[in-house]
């Protein structure tokens, strides 16, 4: 059977992809610009025998995810920057208790109430600051609607495999854009859920918790978690190289929507004879530092482009470690950088490199 090709809005495609990945439970709270996800879920879940439940707050939504995750089902929520910030505490509990859930953050402009325009202002929040304590979680950063669709099944699989939450970050552009998408035809993978608290007694009983009052005991628990995080860093780094086969002297580093705009700019730059490539992190955490390290020597200069004041640039700098110049171009407040701006910026940048 030929796979169906559908024209869908990013948010709705993400929701449908989650359902097809075996997610039958969605808890959420309205916030712009991602309301189409809960709206779609509220229509669709009853049709597939699943559940959509509107929580009283993002704080409650993430704790409903915790409860459902502890029951062993595939469960998700979606929100946007300030709403996601409210989920931080529960997210940390979910990591501490080793539960597999998926959180989608369609980022908006901040700080504070900010605005509802597309932004990448939560890169640092999602990769470094999402929740208290020693912890990590895989952060996927799709650049197109199709990639977001493909990533939903991956997100649930990674969550189940590591028993750790997975985050997918997008922005209002990916959320609102309509693109043709093909849904993967594969059936959801099955995972052992014998650890779930579904009703046991005696030595079989299951306790979902993150409390370890003895410091040495907590240290052992955190070290155990970090063996998982180490495995994620070793096995789950994902990236894309674009127009990089000829070892271009300038490498743009960008992810998500910004990477997509950069690709268009690069085609124009190549026509002008400027050799520029793109390094696109697909996992914002673990940051694809192995792949980036491999091109440091071949590159003369790195240019990070983000829809914020410079957040991923710290991860790039940590890999480059001063061996090459790393500069930055960004727009913030929900302003999306244009192709023309990027072309101009790279031409200027190229001029500074000399012969």
């Amino acid at each position: 059977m030929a796979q169906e090709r559908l024209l869908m809005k990013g948010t709705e495609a993400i929701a449908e992809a989650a359902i097809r990945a075996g997610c039958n439970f969605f808890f959420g709270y309205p916030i712009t610009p991602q309301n189409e996800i809960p709206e779609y879920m509220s229509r669709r879940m009853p049709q597939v025998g699943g559940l959509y439940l509107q929580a009283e707050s993002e704080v409650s939504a993430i704790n409903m995810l915790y409860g459902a995750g502890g029951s062993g089902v595939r469960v998700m929520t979606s929100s946007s920057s300030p709403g996601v910030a409210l989920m931080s505490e529960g997210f940390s509990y979910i990591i501490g208790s080793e539960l597999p859930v998926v959180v989608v953050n369609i980022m908006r402009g901040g700080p504070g109430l900010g605005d509802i325009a597309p932004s990448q202002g939560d890169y640092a929040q999602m990769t470094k600051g999402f929740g208290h304590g020693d912890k990590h979680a895989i952060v996927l950063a799709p650049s197109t609607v199709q990639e977001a669709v493909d990533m939903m099944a991956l997100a649930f699989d990674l969550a189940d495999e590591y028993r750790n939450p997975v985050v997918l970050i997008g922005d209002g552009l990916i959320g609102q854009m309509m693109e043709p998408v093909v849904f993967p035809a594969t059936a959801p993978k099955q995972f052992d859920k014998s650890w779930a608290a579904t009703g046991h007694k005696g030595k079989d009983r299951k306790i979902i918790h993150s409390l370890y009052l003895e410091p040495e005991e907590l240290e052992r628990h955190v070290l155990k978690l970090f063996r998982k995080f180490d495995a994620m860093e070793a096995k789950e780094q994902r990236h894309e190289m674009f127009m990089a086969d000829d070892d271009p002297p300038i490498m743009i580093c960008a992810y998500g929507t910004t990477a997509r705009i950069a690709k268009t700019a690069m085609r124009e730059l190549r026509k002008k004879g400027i050799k520029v490539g793109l390094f696109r992190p697909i996992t914002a955490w673990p940051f694809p530092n192995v792949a980036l390290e491999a091109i440091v020597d071949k590159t003369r200069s790195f240019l990070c482009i983000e829809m914020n004041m410079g957040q991923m640039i710290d991860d790039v700098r940590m890999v480059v470690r001063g061996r090459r110049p790393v500069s930055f171009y960004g727009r913030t407040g929900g302003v999306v950088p244009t192709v023309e701006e990027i072309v101009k910026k790279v031409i200027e940048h190229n001029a500074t490199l000399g012969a």
Partner: protein
Amino acid sequence: MAEEQVIFKRPAALTEKYFHYCPGCTHGIAHRLIAEIVDEMGIQEKIVGVSPVGCSVLAYNYFDFDFQEAAHGRAPAVATGMRRTLPEDRYIFTYQGDGDLASIGMAEIVHAANRGEKITVVFINNAIYGMTGGQMAPTTLPGMRTTTSPYGRDTTLCGHPIRMCELLNTLVEPRFIARGSLSQAKHIIKAKKLLRQAFELQHEGFTFVELLSTCPTGWGLTPENSLLWLERNMMPFFPLQVFREPGTMPETAKKYAPDLKVKDDKKES
């Protein structure tokens, strides 16, 4: 000589771990009552508890069945996630103190009750934050001294104590709301009946049992005087009562009768 008979023993639903609670604290009684009911109903492998943040944070060490631990105040949201995903025949209860439930967790408890989540909430009200060292709670009585109301609770500064049963009883969905006390044998026997009723009604809707409890350490009283203090001071403010049973609904809730539905004739989008 008559053969020796066991007439009192540890319920099967309790582990052999000793309670860490202070002498005179009534958590142990509440735990035991729940465990006895689990035994009597034969649901040890069908029940999952939600432990709170507070002195009973380690409740899962004492009950011999599955548990999920919740963040401070969030137990009703966690229980919602469980209720909506676990098989329908499972029993789910939260066990929460007054700071947890009536302060930081006010939104979660009200909305879980309003949705009619099929869970049982056991609400331990001792008018104080026990684990953090005796600070003022939303249920601290007017004039009552705590470490953060050293001159006595000033109602002009921080309002009056919140009565949770009465508050929740304004909602349509709850099936059972009652307040009992753990201060003496006759009340404990009654409290067990209330808990049993709540668990038996759980699959019909939201059930809530408040238990007036002591905190000798936080109150600075002996265990015995704590029981007397509870009866003398807490009971007048928090009357022992069944507020809601199947078939009953107060006027305040009736105004929004369950079958009242607007005819949504807005244009189809």
